């Protein structure tokens, strides 16, 4: 059977637990503890995870972080399980799902409990912003409940194998995975912070209550302040067959290889030469995947030159003013047709070229995950410079709905280092506004703010600065 698991890696050591037997459509397969169902299936060669509602088209893993619907399967008789974020268990039965799926056969399996929790601050999202907000709020004695969707804390930071930019006091030169490990440890060891993992916040109620679906419990968290740090989702790109299994977000490729040690494919093409596309390309090369080329519709490479230079000297061409026209293949990607674009972004006839690949990674930007904010009635504006719909807020990151703060990518797409700083500001603002902390917290907040301003001061921060002018208006 296909084995896409990575066994040697220059940076990562994969901690695979005990082997677990499970059944995919009656056939026995092996996965490991610490893997999700989706990762285990992918590692053993499955590309086609589900079929779409209307047109019955095959779908494969696209986001790998529980935000799209492509990997939903029937697990132990229950339909619509997001296999990419659900941990694998011994003896599970997994079947492909067609459309919305059949009703559960066994209603006992979904018995749920109810629980109320009281907290000073509820934080939604356990990535760099959420973790930092929790640490800084707890520092001043706040009782924090941190809600996170994933089995493991850290958000996208636990996948960043490269060293960070910035200055030494922001951990420049330290790998993202090491920064994540430290933040997670601080959160887990802090008695003031309670973590709810594998839990989905799904509703806001006035003045500061959130509803959360845990594994088998529905929580009602009555807080005084809420910090939304739900991060971002990858943008999709319009082209023929863009839903073919084997077309996935660059972030999904990163999750598969860096969290689960599973190669997303053998030979792939990257679409988009921004920092994410180029960094993930480098990581793919480190994992032993061949990246045939990067195509970029813009006339120039968006990534920092130093990132681009890394993959270029490893022999990956970057084709600017090129895009993907279509994916082709029978039920899964067998290749991509690329094309050159003219100065009006129109494909130049006759320049089409087929590239044989088994995967197409899309990296055309991220958009803030603002659903909960919208439901809470927070004033939202579409700001292209910040990646999409973001909340209007004041300098302390409080939104138009009193008691709700934002931090990290939900507040505008930036770097993990800026997310960490925004998390600190939001955490500090929450404790200051509650009267839990005084001048020392205010001073600390000022110094974080000054560092953040400094980081954003250069030419690469220009767009962010423009975007912030539009939203920091309250």
């Amino acid at each position, binding site marked *: 059977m296909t084995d896409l698991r990575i066994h*040697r*890696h*220059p*940076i990562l050591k994969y901690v695979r637990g005990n082997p677990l037997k499970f059944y995919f459509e009656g056939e026995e397969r092996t996965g490991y503890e610490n893997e999700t169902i989706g990762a285990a299936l992918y590692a053993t060669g499955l590309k086609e995870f589900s079929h779409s509602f209307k047109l019955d088209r095959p779908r494969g893993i696209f986001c790998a972080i529980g935000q799209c619907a492509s990997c939903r399967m029937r697990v132990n008789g229950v339909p619509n399980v997001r296999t990419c974020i659900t941990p694998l268990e011994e003896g599970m039965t997994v079947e492909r799902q067609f459309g919305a799926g059949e009703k559960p056969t066994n209603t006992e399996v979904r018995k749920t409990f109810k629980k109320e929790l009281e907290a000073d601050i509820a934080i939604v999202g356990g990535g760099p912003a959420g973790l930092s907000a929790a640490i800084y709020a707890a520092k001043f004695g706040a009782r924090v409940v941190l809600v996170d969707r994933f089995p493991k804390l850290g958000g996208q930071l636990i996948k960043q194998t*490269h*060293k*960070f*930019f*910035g*200055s*030494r006091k922001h951990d*420049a*030169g330290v*790998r993202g995975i090491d920064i994540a490990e430290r933040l997670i440890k601080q959160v887990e060891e802090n008695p003031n912070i309670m973590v709810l993992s594998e839990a989905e916040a799904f509703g806001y109620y006035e003045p500061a209550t959130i509803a959360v679906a845990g594994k088998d419990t529905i929580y009602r968290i009555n807080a005084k302040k809420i910090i939304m740090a739900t991060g971002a989702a990858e943008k999709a790109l319009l082209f023929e067959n863009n839903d073919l299994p084997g077309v996935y977000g660059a972030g999904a490729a990163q999750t598969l290889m860096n969290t689960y040690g599973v190669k997303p494919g053998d030979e792939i093409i990257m679409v988009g*030469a921004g920092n994410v596309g180029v960094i993930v390309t480098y990581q793919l*090369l*480190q994992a*032993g995947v061949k990246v045939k080329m990067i195509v970029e519709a813009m*006339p*120039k*490479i968006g990534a*920092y*030159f*130093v*990132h*681009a*230079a*890394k*993959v*270029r*000297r*490893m*022999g*990956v061409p*970057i084709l*600017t003013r090129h895009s993907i026209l279509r994916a082709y293949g029978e039920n899964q990607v067998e290749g991509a047709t690329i094309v050159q674009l003219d100065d009006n972004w129109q494909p130049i006839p006759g320049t089409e070229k087929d590239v044989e690949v088994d995967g197409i990674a899309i990296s055309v930007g991220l958009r803030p995950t603002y659903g909960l904010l919208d439901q809470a009635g927070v004033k939202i504006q579409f700001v292209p410079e910040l990646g999409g719909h973001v909340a209007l807020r004041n300098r302390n990151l409080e939104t138009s709905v009193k008691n709700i703060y934002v931090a990290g990518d939900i507040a505008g797409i930036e770097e993990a280092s800026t997310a960490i700083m925004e998390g600190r500001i939001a955490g500090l603002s929450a404790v200051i506004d509650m009267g839990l902390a005084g001048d020392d917290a205010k001073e600390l907040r000022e110094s974080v703010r000054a560092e953040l301003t*400094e*980081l*954003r*001061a*250069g*030419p*690469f*921060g220009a767009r962010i600065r423009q975007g912030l002018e539009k939203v920091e208006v309250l």
Partner: protein
Amino acid sequence: MEEYEKTGVVTLDYLEKLGNVPSEERLKKGPVAMTECIQDIPCNPCAEVCPVKAIEMPEINHRPIVHFDKCIGCTLCMQVCPGLAIVMLDKSKEKPRLTIPYELLPMPERGDTVVLIDREGNDIGEGKVVALFFPDKKYQSALVTVEVDDDRLLYEARNLRVVN
């Protein structure tokens, strides 16, 4: 728009114009850092760690400028650089030496002859591994020093490949 923004490859000419290439005379005195970090990005650990303040950076969004006369070739900047954008050149030994950061498997070993690769990914020559330094024991990420016969490789080789 600069050419490198389109290609992801910088030319030696361009680096020379920026003043990023140390002189022959300086190279004869011992190892020296050469940066290929040419944009104003928010990053400065190289300047922060330099023990002799040889790297000038007026503010964090400025590109680094190495004062070759001050640099003592300690490699600290190279060890911390997230852009893998610093190499060390040295012509004080019997044969010219080049040190490059390397984060791939397989790792070369001392004494190996490796293929040297240029900024565009082309094989351009060979080098003999004379030193390997692992700044962080936790990772297979090394500074690899190779000895070369041809001077030109010091200026053009920026990657390597292990051959078995």
